[in-house]
């Protein structure tokens, strides 16, 4: 994290001496944005059967989890983002983005799948909450009051542990038994990268509103050990990857200093 911040400061400060003898054409701006987070590829896939992981150490294997790398079960979510940008006279700009996108997880198919195998069950899953902080570089073109821009970025991302559990409603204990991960649930870290474009309208010399769309990816490795709680032996641990892949589309509002 320190390295990323240091690199960012270096990137921002470096252009100053180059242009300090001319007009103050370096512009600083801060913008906020938010909108929809659309899951793509395996992240948004919803295939319980194709992603089920089985305990292969026993004669008749039973399910011990789901490979999120094959099906993320992510649903349509939202994102919010803050961006600090420094624009140079040559239409190049550097920026630091930070924000979070949140995707709820579709559990109906999972519940149906497990219920079909064992008896009535209800699956619960925490939302995917992915925080990111990414420096980047972009190119902007100004046409009267309109700014068009494209950008690429790469940086750091963190997600909450992709915890899920199934309530075994077919059992007779009160409360019913729970099937789920039994162990530590650390937050997961990964490299994230992506790109996007934006179009802004400057309705004053300081304020602008616009639209933006970004595509962002990150792969979070984790391991999971499920069991039925209480009273059952832990299943073998398995490793998996949450392959987050989202298309964010939303509104921006910005202020130029």
């Amino acid at each position, binding site marked *: 994290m320190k390295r990323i911040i240091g690199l960012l400061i270096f990137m921002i400060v470096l252009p100053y001496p180059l242009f300090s003898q001319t007009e103050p054409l370096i512009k600083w701006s*801060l913008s906020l944005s938010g909108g929809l987070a659309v899951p793509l590829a395996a992240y948004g896939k919803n295939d319980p059967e194709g992603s089920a992981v089985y305990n292969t150490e026993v004669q008749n294997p039973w399910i011990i989890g789901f490979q999120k790398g094959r099906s993320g079960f992510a649903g349509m979510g939202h994102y919010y983002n803050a961006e600090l940008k420094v624009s140079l006279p040559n239409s190049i700009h550097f920026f630091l983005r930070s924000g979070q996108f949140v995707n709820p997880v579709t559990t109906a198919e999972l519940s149906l799948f497990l219920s079909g195998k064992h008896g009535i069950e209800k699956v619960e899953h925490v939302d995917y909450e992915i925080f990111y902080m990414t420096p980047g570089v972009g190119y902007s073109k100004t046409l009267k009051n309109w700014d068009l821009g494209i950008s690429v970025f790469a940086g750091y991302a963190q997600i909450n542990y992709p915890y899920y559990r199934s309530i075994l409603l077919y059992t007779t204990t009160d409360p019913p038994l729970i099937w789920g991960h039994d162990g530590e649930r650390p937050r997961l870290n990964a490299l994230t990268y992506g790109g996007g474009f934006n179009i802004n309208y400057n309705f004053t010399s300081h304020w602008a509103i616009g639209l933006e769309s970004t595509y962002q990816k990150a792969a979070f490795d984790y391991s999971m050990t499920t069991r039925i709680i209480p*009273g059952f*032996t832990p299943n073998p641990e398995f490793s998996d990857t949450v392959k987050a892949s989202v298309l964010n589309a939303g509104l921006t509002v910005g202020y130029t*200093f």
Partner: protein
Amino acid sequence: MKKYLLSSVFVALLFAPIITFSQGSCYADQSDFYWKISQSLYGSKRLSDCHPNAYYNCHGFVMSYFENGCTDAGWSKNQIAAPYSCPNNQGIKSAGSYQNSGKYVQVCSEANANIAYYKFVRGDHSAVKEVSAGGSIIKYLSKYNFDGPLVAHNLTGSWYHLDGQETVPPTPVQFWSYVGPILGNPNIVGLSQKTFNVNNISSVTYSWSIVSGNSNINISSASNQSSVTLTPTHSGTAVLRLNVSSACGTVKTQQITLNIQTNVCLEGSYNTGSSSGQHLYTVNSVPVGSVTATVTCPNATSYTWQKTSGTINSWFASGANVSFSMTSGGSITFSVTAKNGATTLATRNVTFYNYGSFMVYPNPSTTSLSIDVNKDIPFTVVLQSFDGPTRAEIQNYYGESKIDISTLKPGEYVLYIYHGDEIINQQRIIINK
């Protein structure tokens, strides 16, 4: 100010809250009601409460019970103060941990078993069988994982059965019995017979074998017994293997390594270019190349080597070791003596020889042939024609001497060379006229 605002936004995002569920060692509800424990209703009884220090599951409890001397709870006893006493407990194990260890075997009937193994819809369970009151009370001891209590119950009266986890019919999938480890001292000293054994279980087949170091020790007892008697013959190591099985399940295997020290004076071994640790017999067949032999003798302070016969003239002795280079068809005999000071402890003759190259010359042959074999060792040579009953046998053949084949019909023959009763070489030759 702006920077502070900006920093605040980032910090707020960084520490965004996440949803988690609570977890603990013992399950929150430890009541008899939850775990369905009732002597009057289900025939079950709590033997020990859950305790964080009793961190083992059902399979781990089975292994601890038999292998680590857990305190015998027993149906007739009162509840044992938690944690249930399992010193050096096995922790969390899978069923395969004990079922594939070789120390447990699947049996066909409950009568021969002391473990019940259950398979549920999405899990499995093991319980220890206990018999008390002269056999009139049979109960199974189940540890409901590390987060549940230890309970004695009827064969199909565990919490898993009562909770609806079991498929229909609710019976154990398998019965298992504890064979135990191979018991006996693996460090064998002397030549006296040693006995090793495991638990004797009715209907179980026992198969003992020596899988390596066969020349160091022999099995001298009858087959299919829960014990085995071994007779050491040479110093070295050997591996004793036991396969156990019944009419149900698969063969289970365990083995131990034996370290044998016979303490026989002037016992030894030798190394060649292609093998090492070969036993030193009175007569030893070795390949062409370097040979180094070593002898041992308890209490010996010096060794002397003396060549007594043979075609090899160059050799080197140092203490208990002798080395030389074996030639094709060569031989050498030593007399080795072990002494303690001036006192002779033992003397032994040791011969090394090489069979030779077995080259037949001339080939094709017309009236006679010779074979490049050792000139000091008697061989038996047999000629057997390919296409007929023609057969010739030559006893006491020594290297370089000639074999008369003038009376044999021309054709292809197989030439067999015997040393004693063993065929040591065979090859195809042609006889022309």
